[in-house]
């Protein structure tokens, strides 16, 4: 699904600019990384793309919809049906089983998850569905977050430092699955990272500094 940001500005309450991007876009199936120093606005851009934060100015067009004009329930439907989101620290429901951490998605969205697909994905990341989430290691937690992100076949996947806390093996597994999913489903993949082991896997890397794009491959 295409994403086009035009005249995008996000300002702090006191007026300082967090983001100031005249134009940015990604096409269906694009795989791109966003990098930059801390405080550059990478996560802010991701939260705007996820519809979790509204820009102060500008528009964010996803497919035919402008996110800035959607109602809260339309935004919720967008996040539930179109988007997959992974964060640096996997926020899971610790006291539920691995399986119920996926089932809980059914309470959030009108589209139920495909249970067969859920099982296949869990097998792919070597997770036991009956295991309690609280007993998972850091790598297993992020793998579960990955499954939770991909199980609904999102057309856009946004990942915020998905490998930051992972060892080499888990980092490779997570990135491999994200890239493979994006390729096989023609899903737009946007990964925020400053790890070279991650960035090296992308042909297009956009650099942000103090809220502005410095240039990079594939910039429109």
């Amino acid at each position, binding site marked *: 699904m295409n994403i086009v940001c035009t005249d995008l500005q996000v300002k702090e309450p006191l007026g300082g600019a967090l983001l100031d991007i005249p134009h940015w876009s990604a096409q269906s199936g694009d795989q791109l990384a966003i990098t930059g120093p801390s405080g550059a606005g990478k996560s802010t851009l991701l939260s705007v793309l996820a519809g979790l934060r509204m820009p102060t100015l500008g528009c964010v067009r996803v497919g035919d919809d402008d996110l800035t004009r959607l109602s809260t329930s339309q935004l919720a439907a967008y996040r539930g049906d179109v988007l997959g989101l992974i964060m640096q620290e996997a926020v899971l429901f610790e006291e539920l089983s691995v399986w119920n951490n996926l089932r809980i998605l059914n309470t*959030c969205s009108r589209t139920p998850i495909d249970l067969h697909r859920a099982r296949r994905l869990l097998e792919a990341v070597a997770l036991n569905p009956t295991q309690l989430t609280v007993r998972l290691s850091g790598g297993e937690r992020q793998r579960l977050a990955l499954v939770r992100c991909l199980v609904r076949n999102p057309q856009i996947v946004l990942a915020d430092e998905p490998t930051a806390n992972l060892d080499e093996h888990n980092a490779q597994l997570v990135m491999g699955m994200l890239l493979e999913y994006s390729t096989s489903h023609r899903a737009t993949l946007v990964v925020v990272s400053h790890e070279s082991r991650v960035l090296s896997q992308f042909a297009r890397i956009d650099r942000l500094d103090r809220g502005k794009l410095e240039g990079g491959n594939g910039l429109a």
Partner: protein
Amino acid sequence: MGWHNLSAQWQDAILILMSLSPVIIGLAGSLLFYKPILAVRALILGHPKFHVGFVLMLAVSVAIGVAVLSQERAIRSGTAQAAGPFDLILTAPGSAIDRLLAVVYLQPSDMPLLDAAAYFSVADHARVDFAAPLAFGDSYANSPVVGTIEAFVNHMAQFAGDQTTAYRFLNITDAVIGARVPLSVGDNFSPSHGMVGDPTAVTHDALVYTVAQQLPMTGSPWDRAILVPIEGIWKVHALPTGHAPGIEQLGPPFDPLYFPGTPAILVRANELWANYALRSEFDGPEVMAFFPGAVLAQLHALVADMRQVLSVMSWMTQILVLSGILLSLSVLVRVISRRLGVLIAMGASHRFIMALVWTYAMVIVLTGVLIGVFFGFGLSALLSDQLTQMTDIRISAALGPAEFLFVSAFLGVTALLALLPAYWSVPRDVQKTLRM
């Protein structure tokens, strides 16, 4: 059909249903449209100690409210039930409450005697079925020994549900014991001159009673009483026995010349309506005639005023508890905000988050309230048992409309107030909440 035409049960049912309507509608809507149970479970399991503490705090508060309401009604009902057999009582003038306590509840009290004139004016009245003299002052162990006549014994037995057995005083030493007197038929005993608990009581060794029969349970202090022919009481106190010397008769008719007086007379009219006429007729400067039920109603009215005060205090406590619940929920909402943020990131709508937090709040409140009702009833039953042991008045704890109304109103108000933390729970800045 107007509200006032409805029966009390219907009025209670409608009020309870109306009070519960926010809970019923809210839960039905939430469960039907949002199906948040798994998420509720996740939130509750997330902070078990907090939730256990919260539920217990709520349960204790509800239990106290339920126990107070239930106990108050049980006491009122038990005391009224105990006064059941006593239609109209005649005593010497004084405090009706003192006389009521002495005659109906057998509380030790010094009572002046009614003379023969008073007794015979009643006993010979055309509208009186029987007039039973009641003589107090002796005791055995923890049981008051009361001198009376057969008619009174049979009257008590009928009140206790025994319509068939004839209770008789065949000898002056025959005794009929209440159901809770620790003696058996055939046992012998000598009463003491003095009331129960009187350390200076002296045993009447000259008189040895034999337990002839035992009454069924009445649920009143009379279950601990020993009923004996009044002639024996008079005799052992060196008074005329109510009959001319040489006449060994027990019970009425008594001889006015040998009637020594009696502290109280229970009057049984031959028609219910006649009681009012008899009371008006007998009540005067020398005799006090009163209906125990009416005196009890005055006492209960006094208690009801206190109950109003207690009720206001109880509601104030509930308001404090509700404020505590709101505060706790608001704190908890902050604790779970990250999880709520994740749900939003996964596609949960703001309405879903509100429904989830409201349902979550109601699940823990309902759990606390149900445990509270259970504990409250248990507490009330325990208190009832203790009070029954202490007073011999059968006090039975039961849950009634007042308790259900109290609980349903509490739930209804909580359901409405829980909308506030539910509204506050929707993270305004999800990015910050998720620490992205």
